[in-house]
């Protein structure tokens, strides 16, 4: 068996980059700069190679276990791009908090690799491994402030729940294997066309694997870990989880949602069943996320609930893909948009010098308008975008998932989502109101506006605004990316 490595280039670049970076940091132990530089180089190279080969013919490799297609390349590019933003944007934070180790970069790179490979996996066992490749660094990074009990707690909670859910995924995989005789998605798909409908084993297995990925994207009722972990983990790690981990996991969830060939009439009832599952998960995520979000005082924790609602919106997009697979574009647009605004928010959060890492409380942003109008403006851009206000990418993100979901016939759910948007808008606008309307509280944290992290925020804000007014720049490319099932 000969293996054509050319389609694998972006991933291989990333792998090689990881190894080189690690070697370099072993050689130059006394300083972190080489690790940082090489991480950036690796990610940049991955980004470039992924984007330059986007138009390449989609192929599956390794006996159908790996997919190199436009979708996976774009995702890899997105992930590496986010990685670059985080490396640049949070190095100031790491320095300030004395967390600046080369390990951080190694783990970040491996995490990105895991996420990228997860999206490319067309085999459930491979996906399980990739998931762990992504998760293990994530657990570790969550506990990266080793002397902070909260950080440790976040890591251990994440780990315990993640481990249990990993086992659930595995059991589900074995059930699917038992039902279809394969763990390969392509094979399962092929089987579904001839099987004349699912058996019980398949249906249960399907539910189990999907439940475990609902956990990974923190959709209700598997969302419980998220607020605690987000609150405890260091800010950059929270940002990485919100963007990179969520993107990777969600795109694989889309694959899982398309296990059988839904257009086959024999699967209609199973489709209805799965739709109901997704519908419930989406609805619950939206309601829980937005209702609890407004009760939060800690911004980081609030963003956790916010990301739960975003999982709900993503699930709306996913529901649309069940009927119309081309609606994958809605998920992609949402992921890009959400990642951009999350990047901005978390890098901004890392600028606050709140004592400890308990995170930024609402009181810390009071009177920011007077202290730093520029920061206030940036905050406003990202929070408005999160709320889905027009002229930001947040609007178009919602536009797509709503439209996608309505195309899937989920009108009632979209109405619910719309109402939740209103509720969550309150939570998003409250910090802005405090910045603008309130005088600075004496206990408010100092905001560090000197650091170069602002470059990243400004870039992200510019992207949020640019894509919000000229979305065609992005949509034109994302629109033609098919979901290969």
């Amino acid at each position: 068996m000969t293996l054509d490595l050319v389609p694998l280039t972006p991933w291989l670049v990333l792998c090689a980059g990881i190894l080189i970076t690690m070697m370099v940091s072993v050689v130059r132990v006394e300083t972190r700069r080489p690790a940082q530089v090489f991480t950036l180089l690796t990610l940049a190279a991955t980004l470039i190679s992924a984007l330059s080969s986007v138009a390449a013919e989609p192929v599956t490799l390794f006996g159908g276990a790996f997919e190199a297609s436009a979708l996976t390349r774009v995702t890899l590019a997105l992930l590496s791009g986010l990685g670059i933003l985080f490396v640049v944007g949070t190095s100031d934070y790491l320095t300030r908090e004395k967390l600046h180790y080369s390990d951080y970069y190694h783990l970040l790179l491996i995490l990105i690799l895991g996420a990228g490979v997860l999206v490319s996996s067309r085999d459930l066992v491979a996906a399980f491994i990739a998931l762990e490749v992504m998760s293990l660094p994530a657990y570790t990074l969550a506990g990266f402030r080793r002397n902070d009990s909260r950080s440790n707690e976040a890591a251990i909670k994440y780990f315990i729940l993640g481990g249990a859910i990993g086992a659930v995924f595995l059991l589900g995989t074995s059930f699917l294997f038992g039902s279809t005789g394969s763990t390969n998605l392509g094979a399962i798909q092929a089987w579904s066309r001839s099987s004349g409908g699912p058996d019980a084993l398949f249906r249960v297995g399907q539910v189990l694997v999907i439940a475990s990925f609902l956990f990974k994207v923190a959709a209700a009722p598997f969302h419980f870990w998220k607020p605690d972990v987000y609150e405890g983990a260091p800010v950059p790690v929270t940002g990485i989880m919100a963007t990179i981990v969520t993107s990777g996991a969600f795109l694989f969830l889309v694959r899982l949602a398309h296990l059988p060939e839904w257009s086959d009439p024999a699967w209609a009832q199973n489709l209805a069943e799965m739709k109901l599952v997704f519908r419930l998960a989406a609805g619950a995520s939206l309601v829980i996320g937005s209702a609890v979000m407004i009760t939060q005082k800690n911004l980081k924790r609030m963003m956790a609930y916010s990301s739960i609602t975003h999982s709900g919106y993503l699930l709306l997009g996913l529901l649309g893909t069940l009927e119309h697979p081309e609606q994958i574009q809605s998920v992609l647009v949402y992921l890009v948009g959400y990642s951009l605004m999350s990047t901005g928010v978390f890098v901004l959060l890392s600028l606050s010098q709140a004592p400890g890492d308990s995170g930024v409380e609402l009181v810390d942003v009071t009177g920011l308008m007077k202290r730093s109008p520029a920061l206030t403006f940036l905050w406003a851009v990202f929070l408005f975008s999160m709320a889905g206000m027009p002229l930001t990418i947040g609007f178009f993100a919602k536009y797509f998932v709503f439209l996608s979901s309505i195309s899937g016939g989920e009108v009632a759910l979209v109405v619910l989502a719309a109402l939740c948007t209103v509720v969550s808008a309150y939570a998003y606008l409250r910090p802005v109101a405090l910045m603008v309307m309130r005088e600075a509280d004496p206990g408010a944290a100092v905001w560090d506006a000197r650091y170069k992290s602002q470059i990243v925020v400004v870039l992200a804000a510019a992207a949020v605004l640019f894509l919000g007014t000229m979305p065609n720049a992005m949509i034109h490319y994302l629109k033609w990316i098919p979901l290969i099932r």
Partner: protein
Amino acid sequence: MDYRLLAFFIFSTIAVLGSLMVVLKKNPVASAFSLVIVFFSFAGLYALMAAHLVAALQILVYTGAIMVLFVFVIMLLNQDNPVEDLRASSGVFKGFAALCTGALAYFLIRVALLAREVTPRGSLNDEKIEELGGNVRVISESLFSDHLFQFELTSFLLLGAIVGTIALAKRKTVKGEAGT
């Protein structure tokens, strides 16, 4: 009586009882040793299904590596005796947990039992495997052909685990260590 059935009953009973002991023993060391028992009986169950390589690795990896690690950590943290501060969960909580997991187990078993009459999708029965050179050979060939991707991926998994563990296990931050 079919000796295989007998073996199955023995091994499975040990496994189930052992795992119950893992859960119910107050002492972590006792739990750990119960777990070892479970792993051994699992090896027996694998062997019963002619999964010889898996059975061997079960003992090597789980019993030999993972459990040693566990016991090591237990000792390291002085958690080798039943400690009072390890309060058990409240009765209601336990009962509810038992109910939920029990219900889950019931339904999953019922579902799994439906698959008794499964039509084999492959043809690699025991005879065929012997023909092809035995369990290990067949697995190995598959590992380096169809499952090469997974195999390569595990390398990065291990890499990640190593880096992560090191990062966690490093000593306390030294002042001035951070920063570029």
